[in-house]
C-alpha cells in the first residue's frame, strides 16, 4: 500500500525546510530529521508505543547536505512501511537494521555530492552571476574606488536575487524529486545515486565557474585598465598594476602555505601600512 500520498509528501517537503533547525554538535541534524519524518511515522505507527520506538530509532546522528536530504527521508519512510508490514519479529529486526544502515550510507553519499555541487560550485557561481549582472548593468563600484554609485536599487538587487531564484528552484526541485525517488526505491543503498549524472553535473559546473570567473576577471582588468590609464596616465596604471600584483603575490604565498584568508587580509593591512608610510615620506600620491 502506497502511504506516501501527495498530502503527506507536501507535509514532509515543507518540514524538510526545517532540517537544520536545532543543529547541534552531538547529533547534527537529528531534530530536523525527526521533525520532517513525523507526519509519515504518525501515519505508519498509530500505536503510541511503536511510534515512540520508531522516533527514537531515528533520533541518532544525521548529517547531510540539506537539499539532498529528501532522498534519505523518502528511503527511510519506505523502510518504515516495510517494518510495519513485517510478518514476524525476524523480518522486522532485519528491516530495522536496514533502516539504520541505509540512513548512514546515504547521508554520507548525498552529503559528498551535495556539498560539491551546492557549496563548492553553485554558491560561488551565484556570486559570480551577481557580479556579471552588475557588470552588464554598468555598476563597477565593487572594483573601482571612484566609480559612480548613484545606481538604482533594482539593479543592485537584481544581482543577488537572480542567485536566490536559481538556488530556490534547483533546491526545491531536488528536495521534492529526492523524496519521491527515495520512497520509490526504498531499501536500496544506491537509491537516488543514479537519478542524475552527478559526476557530469559537478564537472560541468566547475568548467562553467572557471570560464565565468575568467570572463569577469578579464572584463574588470580591461575596465580598470582603461579607467586608470585615462585618469592617471601610463605611470598611474603601472603603479596600480604593481600594487595589485604585490597583493596577489601575498595571496598566492599564503595559499601555497594553506593559510586562511584572514591571514591574507591581515598581511594586506601590514603591506598597505608600509606603502602608505613610504608614500607619505616620499611625497607620492597613492592611486586607489
Amino acid at each position, binding site marked *: 500500500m502506497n502511504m506516501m500520498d501527495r498530502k503527506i509528501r507536501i507535509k514532509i517537503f515543507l518540514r524538510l525546510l526545517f532540517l537544520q533547525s536545532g543543529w547541534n*554538535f552531538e547529533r547534527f541534524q537529528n531534530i530536523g530529521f525527526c521533525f520532517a519524518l513525523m507526519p509519515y511515522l504518525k501515519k505508519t505507527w498509530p500505536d503510541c508505543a511503536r511510534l515512540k520506538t520508531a522516533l527514537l530509532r531515528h533520533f541518532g546522528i544525521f548529517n547531510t547536505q540539506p537539499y539532498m536530504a529528501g532522498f534519505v527521508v523518502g528511503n527511510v519512510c519506505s523502510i518504515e512501511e516495510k517494518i510495519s508490514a513485517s510478518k514476524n519479529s525476524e523480518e522486522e529486526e532485519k528491516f530495522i537494521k536496514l533502516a539504520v544502515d541505509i540512513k548512514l550510507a546515504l547521508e554520507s553519499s548525498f552529503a559528498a555530492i551535495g556539498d560539491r555541487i551546492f557549496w563548492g560550485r553553485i554558491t560561488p557561481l551565484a556570486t559570480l552571476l551577481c557580479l556579471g549582472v552588475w557588470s552588464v548593468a554598468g555598476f563597477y*563600484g565593487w572594483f573601482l574606488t571612484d566609480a559612480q554609485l548613484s545606481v538604482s536599487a533594482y539593479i543592485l538587487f537584481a*544581482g543577488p536575487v537572480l542567485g536566490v531564484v536559481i538556488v530556490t528552484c534547483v533546491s526545491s526541485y531536488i528536495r521534492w524529486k529526492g523524496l519521491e525517488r527515495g520512497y520509490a526505491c526504498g531499501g536500496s543503498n544506491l537509491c537516488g545515486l543514479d537519478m542524475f549524472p552527478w559526476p557530469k553535473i559537478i564537472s560541468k559546473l566547475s568548467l562553467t565557474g572557471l570560464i565565468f570567473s575568467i570572463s569577469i576577471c578579464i572584463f574588470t582588468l580591461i575596465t580598470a585598465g582603461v579607467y586608470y590609464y585615462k585618469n592617471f596616465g601610463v605611470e598611474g596604471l603601472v603603479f596600480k598594476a604593481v600594487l595589485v600584483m604585490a597583493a596577489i603575490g601575498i595571496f598566492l604565498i599564503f595559499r601555497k602555505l594553506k593559510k586562511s*584568508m584572514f591571514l591574507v587580509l591581515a598581511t594586506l593591512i601590514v603591506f598597505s601600512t608600509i606603502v602608505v608610510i613610504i608614500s607619505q615620506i616620499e611625497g607620492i600620491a597613492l592611486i586607489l
Partner: protein
Amino acid sequence: MEIIKIIISGLIGGVFHLDNLQFGQFFLSRPSFMGILIGCVNGCPAQGAIMGILIELVYSDFLPLGGVVPPNGLIASSSAVLLYAHIFQNISLAFFIAIFAGFLYSKVEFFLRKKRSLWNEKMEIEIKENRFKVNHWIVKAFMIEGVSAAGFIIAFSLIFKIAGNLFSFERVIPVTDLAFSLVPWIVLTSVILKFKGQVFGCKKKNSK
C-alpha cells in the same frame, strides 16, 4: 534616529539570519543580498552592495562542511553597512572591522550549537513520555538564533559608535583605503584558482 535605524537593521538581520541555518537556505542570508537590504534601510544601498559582495567573496573560502562553523556573512555585511552609515562614513574601515564581526559571531554560533546538544537528552525524555511534538524545540531554536543575531548586530554597532566618539580612526583610513582597493583582485584570483583546481584537479584524477 540613528539608534532606531541600527535597531531596525539588527531586527531585519535577525529575521534573515534564520535562512542561514534554521529554515530554507534560500540564499537570502547571503552578504550581497543583506548588504543591499540593510543599505536601503540606512540610505546607502550601493555601499552595502560593494561591502556585501566583497565579504561574500572573502568568506567563500570557508565552506560549511561537516561540523565546521564558517564566519557569518550576514552579520558581517549588516555590521559593515551600519558601521559605514552611522559611525565611520568610510567604506574600507567599515569593511575590515565587519570582517572581524563575522568571524567573532562564528564563535557565538559555535557556542549556541554546542548548547543545543543538551536538548537531545531532554527531547528523548519527552519522546519516552509519549510527548511527540518537536515543534516547540524548533520554535525555541528560531527565537534564540534570531535574537542572538539581532542582538549581536546591534551591540557590535553600538560598541563601535561609542568607540568612534572616543577615538579617532582617521590615521588608519589611508591604510584601509589602499588595502580595500586591492581586495577585489585578491578575491577574484581566489575564485579563479578555486575553479581551476576543481577542473584540472578532476582531469588529473581521471587521467590517472
